[in-house]
């Protein structure tokens, strides 16, 4: 017996909530990037679940694109983290506030 689609959506929602909580509460830039990855995975799970629900492959194709974009985003994000660490000797986002002062 297949899994009902609303249960998949609930799992995706919980994953997204965990990601949002991580972005809002952690101040370590690497952990924030990881939380963003969790949220992208949750969105991807939704795509695949709807692809299954509607028996249409577009959701899976879009999921592949999401993963490609996530790979690019992580590469640039981690390069920015390295550049920030080089400049501030810290990767805590509270330490990076040149434009606030």
């Amino acid at each position, binding site marked *: 017996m297949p899994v009902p689609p609303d249960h998949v959506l609930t799992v995706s929602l919980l994953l997204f909530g*965990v990601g949002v909580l991580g972005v809002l509460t952690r101040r370590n830039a690497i952990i924030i990037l990881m*939380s963003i990855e969790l949220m992208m995975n949750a969105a991807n799970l939704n795509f695949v679940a709807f692809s299954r629900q509607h028996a249409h492959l577009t959701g899976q194709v879009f999921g592949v694109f999401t993963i490609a974009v996530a790979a690019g985003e992580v590469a640039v994000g981690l390069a920015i983290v390295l550049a920030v660490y080089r400049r501030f000797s810290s990767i805590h986002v509270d330490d990076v506030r040149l434009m606030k002062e």
Partner: protein
Amino acid sequence: MTLGPEAILFYVLSAVAVGAGLQVILSRSPIHSAIGLVTSFLAIAALYVLLHAEFVAAVQVLVYAGGIMVLFLFVIMLVNLRDRAPLRMRWRGALSAGIGALAIGAMLFAVGRGRLAAAPIGAPAADVAAGVGNLQAVGAALFTDALLPFEIASVLLLVAMIGAIVLARDLGRDLGREPGRE
């Protein structure tokens, strides 16, 4: 109502995925967060297999659990590991977390009570109906309907690669000296 093996597997894998996600945001050491993240990625890949999206599952394992995790581990090794405040909840953070929890509760309610809960479980995907594999079907869709986005994605990856190289270029030269480079 008895649960089939597929449903039991789904709930176990979902619990693993969400629990590992919690480990990502709760653990003190970034290495433990990375281990939680890769566990979550693998559990989600297994969920994709359960949802008959084998190609997406393979890409998930290759790109996320392989490539992205290696990037994360390299950066964790390169930067300083001291974590001052694991999950520090200031009042503003607590307020946003409360609002987020409210929104998530509302969405859970909507998902549970909405039209989707009563919707019939979908038919097998088009590739199963057509008698070809999932990889073949997704590949055909990628190179016919989604050809332009596919090429744009390749250009995007090229731009991201060049950008990452430029941003992280002279790491070794600058690590030893004072970071002021005005």
